[in-house]
């Protein structure tokens, strides 16, 4: 994939994350702040499908944006073919792992299972 395509994804996920976190905060404002942090309410949020979808989208956009950012930092810090390839695949693997684990948590909670 060309760097311009990766950077397009980077900027789009960054902007999308800002919008989605804004929506997430708006969701939280439906109930008083103290009540929103109670265990039952937090679990109930996950069982609200639009809320769970927003959480999943935040997870995906932040993971992609964050790990691509980390990749950029690391290839600017040190150069070399093996280092750069290693960093690229480590970041891809870490992003997939985080998305998979986070999705599992969101799915389990939304289906009423133990997290």
């Amino acid at each position: 994939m060309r760097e311009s395509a990766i950077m397009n994804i980077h900027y789009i996920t960054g902007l999308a994350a800002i919008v989605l976190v804004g929506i997430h905060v708006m969701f939280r404002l439906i109930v008083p702040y103290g009540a929103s942090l109670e265990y039952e309410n937090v679990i109930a949020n996950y069982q609200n499908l639009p809320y769970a979808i927003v959480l999943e989208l935040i997870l995906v956009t932040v993971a992609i944006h964050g790990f691509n950012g980390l990749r950029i930092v690391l290839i600017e810090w040190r150069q070399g073919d093996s280092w750069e390839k290693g960093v690229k695949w480590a970041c891809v693997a870490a992003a997939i792992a985080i998305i998979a684990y986070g999705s599992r948590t969101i799915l389990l909670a939304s289906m009423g299972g133990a997290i």
Partner: protein
Amino acid sequence: MTKNIKLRMYRHIPGKDSPHYDTFEVPAERWTTVLDALLYAKAYNDHSIAVRYSCRMASCGSCGMMINGIPRLACYTKIYELDTDTITCQPLSNFPIIRDLATDFSTFFQHHKDMKPYIVNDLDDIDEKAREFLQSPKELEEFLQFSYCIKCGLCYASCPVVATDKKFPGPQALAQMYRYFADNRDQAADERLKIVDDRHGVWRCHFAGSCSKVCPKGVDPALGIQLLRGYMMGFAKKEKKEPILFAKETVA
């Protein structure tokens, strides 16, 4: 009015001695430049001082160095405008040192060469009929400021990305890339974009803007880099109007 200033100069021969500073007392008039002061010290204090210079009028770009911590041309920097009695001269940052203030520009020039700094056009403007491309003033303005670059390396020395990423072409090379990309006589726009659409290419610029700040010729490399990005992201479209190719007799 003559005043004496202290010229604190970085001295180092790689592989022979360790870096240190020598201080010379040099007379300065209102018109004395840092290069004049260095040449005075070289003539009257220490013949072994290594400093690269040529035109003495900010045209050749040879005498770039860190003067009081900022990349400047020694021939273009008057001692009085620095408003201090001690002037520290160091070799340009981000360049390997050859000796004292003389630095190695090989990597810098290689990055410049990699950008194909020439017009690529099948309709060569030099043929047996001595034809030439005509450009409107507007078409010229698209790239004119970038063609003022004298390759002095000050922007490269001031770039924080070059300091850590040696594969990054640097502001000079990228601005020159834009200069030819924006020229409507050039036909290699796509090819040029591919050169910098790389892991260490145009996307690594952090837009610190120090390159534009230090340029002695008023070039704005940071602008060129952002314009390139705009084209690559599709915010700007390249509508190259083919230049008119005239035979000289036709023009006459």
